[in-house]
């Protein structure tokens, strides 16, 4: 029977292999063990993310070659200086215009930040509502859950098409009503402000599901016993939320908002696909893509914008981390 047992052990394939490995490593110290567990993930990341990232950063210190495809000579911070002083004539839009002659929404930096703040706020609020709706008990809730998640499953190109067709000049279903209400111009997709609103709404529409899913998962993981306690203690609905739900969902919420903010600060696809276009609503990532894939491939500048974006995103993340630390919640980061 011992033999049999041995066989079944190895036979239970992935578990078996894993178990073998696990047994051998079980005696490692917590420290060593943790590192061992991180090896697979970080190997992949090192090869396919960190290394290319480092190469890209390196690229940012080299000059553009107009005929494209290659790197010019080492130029130090020139690319950055040009971008920050808005003196790169080849830049499809101003990253930031120090003279402030370019309208705010046409400066990639400010446009993107505004977009991120609005969309993440909208998505978080809507996401919370959706999550509650998905969690509540009523008939047909399975369907509702599905429907809430679906927008997230729509490829961005199609999302763009949907909104394009809604706001298409002349024919778009919403073009005329909104124009008559005086909210939009007759060419919303060509007007920076209108387009900005459309892109923001489109993003909130699609991405609230992301938030909702994560928040829902957070809600579901809260030990229901605690609500009983709170109820007996006399907590109102709001207080339950304030003292139990919110703090316990907070870590998940932070993860969701963190990643949504990072995503929003890198917004690009929705702008391109609604045919609003980068020239109407120039986001930071628009610059990267246009530098890189405009027929002149300006790798140096593209990389430099990426690094600038990373710095902006990084600053935002610091705000989050500060927030996390202050609220005394540990994500392991603060």
């Amino acid at each position, binding site marked *: 029977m011992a033999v049999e047992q041995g066989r079944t052990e190895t036979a239970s394939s992935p578990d078996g292999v894993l178990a073998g490995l696990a047994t051998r490593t079980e005696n490692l110290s917590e420290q060593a063990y943790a590192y061992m567990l991180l090896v697979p993930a970080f190997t992949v990341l090192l090869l396919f993310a960190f290394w290319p990232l480092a190469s890209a950063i390196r690229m940012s210190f080299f000059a553009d070659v107009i*005929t*494209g495809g290659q790197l010019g000579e080492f130029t130090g911070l020139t690319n950055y200086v040009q971008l920050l002083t808005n003196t790169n*004539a080849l830049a499809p839009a101003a990253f930031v215009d120090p003279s402030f002659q370019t309208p705010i929404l046409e400066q990639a930096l400010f446009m993107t930040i505004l977009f991120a703040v609005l969309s993440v706020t909208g998505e978080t609020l809507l996401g919370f509502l959706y999550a509650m709706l998905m969690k509540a008990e009523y008939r047909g809730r399975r369907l509702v859950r599905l429907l809430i998640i679906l927008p997230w499953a729509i490829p961005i190109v199609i999302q763009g098409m949907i909104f394009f067709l809604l706001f298409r*000049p002349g024919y778009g279903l919403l073009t005329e009503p909104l124009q008559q209400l005086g909210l939009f111009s007759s060419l919303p*997709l060509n007007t920076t402000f209108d387009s900005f609103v459309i892109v923001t709404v489109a993003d909130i529409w699609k991405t609230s599901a992301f938030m909702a899913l994560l928040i829902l998962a957070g809600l579901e993981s809260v030990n229901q016993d605690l609500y009983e306690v709170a109820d007996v203690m006399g907590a109102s609905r709001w207080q339950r939320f304030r003292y139990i739900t919110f703090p316990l969902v907070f870590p998940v919420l932070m993860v969701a908002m963190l990643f949504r903010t990072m995503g929003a600060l890198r917004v690009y696809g929705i702008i391109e696909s609604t045919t609003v276009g980068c020239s109407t609503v120039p986001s930071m990532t628009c610059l990267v893509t246009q530098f890189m894939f405009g027929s002149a491939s300006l790798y140096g500048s593209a990389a430099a914008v990426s690094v600038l974006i990373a710095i902006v995103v990084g600053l935002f993340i610091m705000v989050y981390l500060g927030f996390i630390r202050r609220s005394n919640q540990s994500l392991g980061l603060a």
Partner: protein
Amino acid sequence: SGGGDSGDGGSGDEIGGTVTVFSGSAFVDIGMEEALHDAGVPDSIDIEMVVPPQDSGSKQQQLRTAINAEEADPDLVLTDNGWTIPFIVRDDLVNLEEEMDDEFIARVREEGVQSMIDTGTHPETGDLYSVPVFPDYPVITYRKDLLRDAGYGDSDFESWRTDPPTWAEFTQIVAEAQSGSDVQYGHLWQGNNYVGLACCTFNEFLTSMGGAFFGGEDNLFGPVGDRPVTLDTEESIDGIEAAVDIIHGEGLSPMDIEGVSPQEVAGWIEPDTKSTFEAGSAVTQRNWTYSIGGAVSSFEGTDMELGVMPLPQGPNGSAHAQGGWIMSMNPHTDNMASAKEVIKAWWEDPVLQLQFDEASYMPPKPELFSYVQESEAVGPYFEALQYSAQNLMPRPTTSVWPNQRSIVANEVNAALRKEKSPEEAASAMQEQIAAIEEQSG
């Protein structure tokens, strides 16, 4: 890496294998492969038409990717004549002048539409890199029935084919026709903030009004940095004003242009105007050749009657932007000999005729225009096409054009939406484009 680099792969000189052509869905399942074999491609060669999934811009991007990847497939690519030169300049396409026999090259030069051949030629060496596949011309399609109601007749239609009205006359005619009918729109064209505005629709206004991007047609392909930027000249501003006038009718331009285009054109591109016109909602439309076929079939069995004329004239005559696609070879192909066979066969008349029959693509050889003339659908409008073919103007294709075109599109569109005055738009363009010229010179 040059064309020779990877063209010498082991199988590169043998006939056989599969030749992949990065063409388009219009070429799939219309019997092109058969026709090419009939036109001389040995049977040992398989030909595969690959559908590039997207519009011009993405196709360009994908081609760039494939070439950067030193991919062996596709062996042949159809490239937009509007963005081929940067590839040529970077040696990202095979120099056919070197690789193919001189006789064939000479034949192409001789038989092909000149403006198409120019867009496939190295601007400095003059070597031919690409063979025209089909040219595309902008024309005005219009509703004869409405114009008749407004008092115009066949004689007018007749004369416009070879002597189009001026912008002033044209807008007058459209205005009359529209006021006498319940058609929603007057003249449609593509004024959205997109590639086509810079290269084509605005360029047409600009040129016909006597303006130019870089001082004149000679400088369109460069040299970058060594050419004047002339967007702030009086004539160039006239070009913007004409485009604005045709929407808003404010009489800014020296011509007496009426506002017959709806504000929406500033947000429309080809499919929008095409479907609107075909639905009978407009009097006239500027669009490419292929739109004739669409209108013909849409108008069939209705009261609507189709007319086609060249683009109206300005002080500088009538200007038509060059459209169309040309065929080039991937420098990394591993099947060059076979690919050459395909290129050669594609220049044969039956192939080009099939292409016209099945996909409404004009043949790139003027001598075949008679074939077009005889065709049932397009034949009646051939004269107009011919006129535009004769009044073509190439696009300003250089490696910095992508950056410049978005500035042009942006500023002109802003002017069309009256966000900026024509002068403001002009000076903004002038300043930014000059800066690019300077930085990249």
